């Protein structure tokens, strides 16, 4: 059997759901005709047909069927492309999940630019922002398969409504079998005293590479990975900002309302320092490759490096 980090993220999503279903039959997998994209068809649908609910292209119904299942003690994981799993069904999630306090887990796949070939109609840059603005909703974004598995295990053991981004392809290994996930806790991936770099999900692998390179060149980077965008680890952010005095954020999202905004809110109220947000600068997406979009929107590795160097000059 392949090592976990040799697997696609979606394959680990399906495998972990199957493992959870073995020990807890209440865990359910719901899809809206994108199960093959999420990796659960046929992996979960064949292995646990009674725990798998195909809803067809009807995301609103899927979310509320999930709410009904949760009212009866089930633990439904409802997946679709992040554009359909968040903005398309925002009212269903708001009322039937968060307001009603029903234990539904929502999985938004192919977030941000990872939707590449499907283009602008399918690229969702605002799911972190809009899901974060919803009371009683947690918002997560794992950076590798080990963290994804730990996150899914934690979600299945909790009665907290939550939204999780899921990048579908392989991602480089960052953690190992000992990975843990705690809502509201950030992970310090590298320590440094010159600049704080904050990332989540898909962007953490790039942030790590940049932090390694900068550190080798004499710029100490404190790298804070935030798998839990909400609740945010304000304590860790403030501690790092006190140490470095400057913060760069990077996310695979619109900088309006997402991780960068959350960091600005937290530090603005608790420990103001110069901050530079990187991500999509309030624009729609388009059919394009990762490199093209990084360059166009200035949030690839090169831009992260430059932002970290530039912000040093803004320090008090």
């Amino acid at each position, binding site marked *: 059997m392949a090592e976990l980090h040799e697997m696609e993220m979606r394959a680990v999503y399906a495998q972990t759901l199957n493992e959870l279903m073995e020990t807890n039959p209440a865990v359910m997998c719901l899809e809206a005709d994108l199960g093959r994209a999420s990796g659960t068809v046929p992996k979960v649908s064949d292995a646990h047909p009674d725990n798998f609910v195909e809803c067809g292209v009807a995301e*609103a119904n899927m979310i509320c*069927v999930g709410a*009904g299942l949760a009212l*009866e003690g089930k633990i439904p994981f409802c997946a679709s492309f992040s554009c359909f799993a968040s903005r398309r069904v925002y*009212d269903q999630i708001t009322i039937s999940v968060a307001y009603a306090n029903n234990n539904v887990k929502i999985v938004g796949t192919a977030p941000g630019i990872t939707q590449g070939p499907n283009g602008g109609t399918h690229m969702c840059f605002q799911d972190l922002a809009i899901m974060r603005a919803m009371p009683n909703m947690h918002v997560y974004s794992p950076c590798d398969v080990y963290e994804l598995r730990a996150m899914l295990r934690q979600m299945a053991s909790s009665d907290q409504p939550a939204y999780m981004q899921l990048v579908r392809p392989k991602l480089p290994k960052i953690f190992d079998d000992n990975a843990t996930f705690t809502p509201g806790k950030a992970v310090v991936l590298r320590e440094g005293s010159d600049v704080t770099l904050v990332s989540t999900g898909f962007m953490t692998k790039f942030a790590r590479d940049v932090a390694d390179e900068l550190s080798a060149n004499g710029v100490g980077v404190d790298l804070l990975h935030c798998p839990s965008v909400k609740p945010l680890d304000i304590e860790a952010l403030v501690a790092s900002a006190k140490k470095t005095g400057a913060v760069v954020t990077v996310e695979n999202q619109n900088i309006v309302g997402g991780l960068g905004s959350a960091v600005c809110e937290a530090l603005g109220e608790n420990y103001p320092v110069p901050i530079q947000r990187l991500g999509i600068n309030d624009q729609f997406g388009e059919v394009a490759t990762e490199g093209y979009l990084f360059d166009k929107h200035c949030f690839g590795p090169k831009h992260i490096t430059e932002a970290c160097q530039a912000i040093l000059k803004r320090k008090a």
Partner: protein
Amino acid sequence: MNNEAFDAKKFDLLTEELRYVITDMVCCAGSGHLGGALSLVETFITLYYRVMNVDPSNPKWANRDRLVMSKGHGAPVWYAALAYKGYFPKDWLPTLNADGTKLPSHADERTVPGIDATTGSLGQGLSVACGMALAAKLDKQNHTVFCIIGDGETNEGQNWEAAMFAAHKNLDNLVAITDYNKLQIDGFTDDILGLEPLVEKWQSFGWEVFEMDGHNRDDLYEKLTAAKNVTGKPAMIIAHTIKGKGCSEIENTIGSHNIKVPDEAAREKYLSAMSNADIELPY
């Protein structure tokens, strides 16, 4: 009155008393969704006193029949029925919509014993009921999930997603009721967004469909019982009702959806317009 010993005279008296109490609750609140609550009085009494298998002393009893009212704004009739069944004290009823109340304008599972699902945003409840019915199937439980939707609410496309889902999954433990009072906020349903042919629509989606007079106790009992016994597919009962039924001031009028009761004169106007205004309030 209980499931075993049905008494038509008591049923009719209870109908009049609940209508009066519901209207008083809305008057106490100063405004509220009266019309769509009054159209469902006989339905709720029939469900809770003759059809549904429930235990008011144990609202979350696992084997109970469930009820989802997707038209959550009809909550006053549900709250009144639950209080009369003993789920909570009747003196909660005049606190409808008051600051800090347990009885908000739209049906709330979090604060009200006996409410099985929180609703309020139209179009979502039938899907929630589908999830509950599916869970019962998976867990090999024999209870029925009832779901009341509004006629205006039927404009919402999500109902038709749920309609396909329930039929596809053979949810014969699901009984839906359309409160077809022919009125929605902006006017008559025929003028706003016509639903007809409504029976054929649900039939074509694979449901067993009944029609009933939603104010006739014998028809209600017969159709609800028959719908509960349908096998192999979900059941829909189109309940022909009158919005604001029993309050002559608003009966079958466009303004009946949400009434304003700014002062004592308005309160007197609505309460004196009840079909039986000689009711002693229980709180």
